[in-house]
């Protein structure tokens, strides 16, 4: 018996030792071969620019495809992409794009204006079911076509004057329109390829698979293993191929951020999609830390259902908001990784500064609550706060729950809901207070402020103010200058925060671990990665010591 035991122990030990990773780490290998190992958060739904939504998808699609323009990762200013140059008409309603003379698809075909015309029509076609169709709404008749009011795609304001010239007509001057040109919903797809595998508007075809897909970006798809990795390699036909440093990128669906951080720590990743909150302090302490954080174009806030008591009373809404010590929250619960927010729009979007009408003021909060008829919390009917299941949402909710109790002596019950249930409750406005976050699709206050127009699809608060609607929908678009426009936005946002249908909490921050060997991957407001600028330096790998 015992002999038996011994033998087995030996076998197991052997298995362990044999298993020990003697091999060279991903990062070392990558630095040598110019391959970037990229933590991408999760498995992409797919790679069809007109079908998918979501950040992980965008990272891969941005590597494979290229829109008319492509942002500079430092300035976020549009730089030539599929279009070499463009000019605006005097009324700034018509934009003419001149295509890259050397623009090529990965199979060698030229990239023409017709490709974009066809692709945009595809993107807008209702049958396509493209959730991001609205990104093209500034284009003339785009909305009408996407919502089936007209069914002649020719009426949509995008034409190819010739192979190399694309003319886009807008409903109204849209300052941020160029930014939309590197959002994947405005990308071009390769017509023959798409049609070889099915109808243009078919969601189920295999055209995006390895071997089938044809793209016009700096990289082309090499390998796609579900839930394991997606590998893209240099696209030799890319017009600006010489400017591209990387030979390839490996995207990992790192769902579990704890293990993602650990993979980074043992040099299995160059870049992580996120960083566990509680790891931040340790990384901050590190000399030349790999931890990179930057304000992110998004706001974390609570929706207040203005149609349900007690929140139908603006004083109660204000009281709740004033009672929240955002400084303490961000400092202690979020480890100072985010900035307090006092309005819906993140500060510094292209120079726009949102109003700050209030600060943490328990006194005032108590006064307002008393005014509203709940002095010292007497007669408080109770309030329920819903949030979708997640560690960080829970932490914030727990903290605020206590702040409200301390400051206002009112009880707020928490209820976390499974994702889809939560979405259902929110869209049905079946809640009193609901956690919410909004990430900008493009850098412009409008992207946040038009959420709260009356009956806006993402309003979800019952907030309705004709003046506000007019400011956002009528006057701002027609503003002569950016300053005038921002002034109108400021006025609108002030009205919004006076009504307080939402309770802003903090401004998002992008948080990544970036290996010292990675250059040209700067943090920016859009958390935008421009793969063209990334290069790797073969620095010696050092241990990341967390104490």
């Amino acid at each position, binding site marked *: 018996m*015992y002999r038996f035991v011994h033998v087995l122990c030996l076998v197991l030990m052997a298995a*362990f030792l044999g*298993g020990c*990773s003697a091999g060279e780490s991903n990062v070392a290998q990558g630095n040598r071969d110019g391959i970037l190992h990229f933590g991408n958060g999760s498995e992409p739904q797919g790679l069809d620019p007109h079908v998918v939504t979501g950040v992980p998808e965008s990272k891969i699609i941005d590597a494979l495809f290229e829109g008319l323009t492509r942002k500079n990762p430092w300035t976020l200013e549009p730089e030539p992409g599929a279009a070499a140059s463009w000019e605006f008409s005097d009324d700034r309603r018509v934009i003419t794009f001149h295509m890259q003379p050397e623009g090529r698809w990965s199979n060698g075909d030229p990239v023409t204006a017709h490709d974009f015309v066809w692709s945009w029509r595809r993107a807008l076609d209702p049958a396509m079911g493209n959730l991001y169709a609205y990104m093209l709404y500034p284009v003339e008749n785009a909305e009408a076509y*996407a919502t089936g009011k007209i069914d002649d795609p020719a009426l949509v304001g995008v034409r190819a004057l010739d192979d190399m010239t694309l003319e886009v007509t807008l409903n109204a001057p849209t300052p941020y329109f160029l930014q939309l040109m590197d959002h994947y919903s405005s990308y071009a797809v390769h017509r023959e390829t798409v049609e070889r595998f099915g109808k243009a508007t078919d969601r189920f075809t295999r055209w995006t698979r390895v071997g089938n897909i044809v793209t016009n970006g700096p990289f082309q798809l090499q390998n796609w293993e*579900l*839930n394991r990795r997606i590998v893209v390699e240099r696209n030799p036909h890319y017009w600006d191929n010489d400017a591209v440093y990387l030979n390839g990128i490996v995207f990992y669906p790192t769902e579990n951020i704890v293990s993602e951080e650990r*993979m980074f720590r*043992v040099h299995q990743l160059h870049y992580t999609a996120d960083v566990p909150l509680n790891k931040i302090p340790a990384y901050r302490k590190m000399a030349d830390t790999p931890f990179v954080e930057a304000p992110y174009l998004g706001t974390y806030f609570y929706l207040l259902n203005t149609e349900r008591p007690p929140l139908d009373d603006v004083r109660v809404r204000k009281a709740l908001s004033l009672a929240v010590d955002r400084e303490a929250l961000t400092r202690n619960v979020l480890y100072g990784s985010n900035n307090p927010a006092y309005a819906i729009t993140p500060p510094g979007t292209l120079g726009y500064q949102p109003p700050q009408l209030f600060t943490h003021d328990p006194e005032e909060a108590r006064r307002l609550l008393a005014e509203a008829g709940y002095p010292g919390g007497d007669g408080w009917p109770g309030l329920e706060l819903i949030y979708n299941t997640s560690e960080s949402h829970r932490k914030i909710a727990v903290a605020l729950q206590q702040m409200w109790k301390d400051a206002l002596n009112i009880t707020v019950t928490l209820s976390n809901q499974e994702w*889809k249930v939560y979405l259902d409750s929110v869209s049905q406005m079946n809640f009193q207070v609901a956690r919410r976050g909004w990430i900008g699709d493009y850098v412009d206050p409008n992207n946040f402020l038009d959420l709260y127009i009356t009956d806006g699809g993402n309003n979800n608060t019952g907030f309705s103010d004709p003046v506000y609607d007019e400011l956002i929908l009528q006057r701002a678009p027609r503003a002569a200058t950016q300053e005038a426009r921002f002034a109108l936005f400021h006025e609108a946002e002030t009205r919004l925060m006076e009504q307080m249908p939402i309770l802003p909490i903090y401004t998002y921050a992008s948080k990544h671990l970036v290996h010292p060997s990675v250059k040209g991957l700067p943090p920016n407001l859009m958390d935008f990665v421009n793969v063209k600028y990334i290069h790797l330096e073969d620095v010696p790998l050092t241990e990341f010591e967390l104490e």
Partner: protein
Amino acid sequence: MWRFIAGRLLQAIPVILAVITVTFFLVRVAPGGPFDSEKAVIPEVKAALEAQYRLDLPLGQQYLAYLQDLARGELGPSFKYPGRSVNELIAAGLPATAELGAYALLVAVVLGGLAGVVASLKPNSAQDYIPMSVAMIGICMPTFLLGPLLVLVFGIHLEWLPVAGWGDIPGDKILPSLTLGAAYAAYIARLSRAGMLEVMSQDYIRTARAKGLPEWQVVTRHALRGGLIPVVAFLGPAFAGLLAGSFVVETIFQIPGLGRFYVQAAFNRDYTMILGTTVFLSTLIVLFNLLSDILAAWLNPRLRAQYGEA
């Protein structure tokens, strides 16, 4: 024997059908649809999508249509991953999960069986208490805790083993298998200990001793077989459990397995995917229960005879 197997398989059909039906309607009752997203969906778009997935048909028709597809082995297109069929997704996820499950089971049987047998040889001694105590911890140690702990020790501090991945770096399959196998190893340890104690008190063990066989031969030749039969009977449910429960381990170690798909599907209301995986898993459960029964019969001549005639 064959008659017995066939009979069991026939019994399974109504079970699986029932599972399909209940699941089909359960998922439809659950709030939130597959297309709900954080940003409001344009009604026209939603309509178009629902049309593409036959969701515009009355529920009854959808059900029948699904059964028809199923009869053809078609599990339908996935909602979450447009352009991928559920068959494809399962095919993609199964290998890793099956392999993981197999290794975990191996770990469970070898470690658990060994611990149990060793413990049973000297009941109520240190040789009994120590392995059994470890087993108890194994039972109460949730995988979401054990996994990260092992990674911390062997992956980060000792740097012996990779912290994640599956088949990418040599040795990256060890920790997941251990993590998943631990709990089952603990159960098997208890089972085999009980079984061995039972057998060791049998008369025929005394006969074996009377023959003058040395103790280790008495154990290996005479006791082990009978003592491990309860373990064998447990293997079927265990493996099914491993498959269904592997998702935690898969997410911890970034393993491209079925479990992740299954759970994601539930969260995403990916109707076809939920149904597909459920059908698949319940079929597996049935099969493995059958398998372990057959194995048990094979080990036990008396049962073998029964099934033989039945």
